[in-house]
């Protein structure tokens, strides 16, 4: 099961009581506008990006590899009329990282940017496993 599926399943539950909903669609661009800008108050999550690198080199080909999986999530809300529970929703997205098992690092960094009359939240998920 991809980490994206785990995160979406967790967020579908945890955001159900907020004014933010979850889309299972990828955050693709339609007619030059990303879906998450077109459909405000809807969280979109990109696919898993996996990178494998050596953690320990050994002299007999028993090397230990570390796998890094990164995903980016997007949420746009109206800057003038933000949902009253936007903090709750943002925290729920950040905490969804804890639903992913078997990883020794589970991080989520969030940045926000005001563009015109919108606030774009970008969530950078990062997971490390052996």
């Amino acid at each position: 099961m991809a980490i994206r599926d785990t995160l979406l399943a967790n967020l579908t539950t945890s955001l159900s009581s907020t004014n933010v909903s979850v889309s299972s669609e990828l955050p693709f661009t339609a007619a030059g506008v990303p879906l998450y800008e077109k459909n405000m108050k809807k969280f979109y999550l990109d696919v898993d990006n996996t990178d494998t690198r050596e953690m320990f080199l050994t002299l007999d080909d028993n090397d230990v590899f570390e796998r890094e999986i990164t995903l980016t999530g997007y949420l746009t809300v109206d800057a003038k009329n933000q949902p009253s529970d936007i903090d709750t929703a943002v925290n729920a997205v950040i905490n969804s990282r804890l639903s992913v098992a078997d990883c020794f690092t589970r991080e989520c960094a969030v940045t926000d940017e005001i563009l015109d009359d919108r606030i774009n939240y970008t969530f950078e998920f990062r997971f490390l496993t052996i």
Partner: protein
Amino acid sequence: MAYIAVNTSGNFVALKINADGVDYDSNVSAAFVAGNANVMTVPALQEVTLNASPGTFRWQQLDTGSEKIVTTPATNSVAVTLVMDDTTFFGNVGSTPALVDIVNNKTKCYFRLGWQGLSSGDRYIQGAGYLTALAPTVSPGSPVWTTPITIEVDGEFTRGNVA
């Protein structure tokens, strides 16, 4: 000039240990005869350092312009770091106990270090000694157990080629 490269599968550094309780002091090679089921191959070595340090004693005398020197007995050891393997760290290989038990019980062991593998004709250095300096470590940023191990050598190294 011929480098001792260890980067191909047939030339990997190999460390074998026999701690089956038999006294091989008079013939260490007997501990590593082909087919001996008590020989443990230590996997996932990260770093190997062989130390052979003859001691010296210096003195000065009034009839020479430079110090005099004589040698004293050597201190020999083999230090390795490795990624811990559950099978060899906690499991016996025939009559050779697990690595952790060899250290805990201070069991005398015999070792053979292959410079470029241990196939027929390959060079090795071998001897007897005790495993010390076990210090397994792990951390959140490095979540796989690794450990150093030092073989404190009892007596001299001997060298040869695999039969």
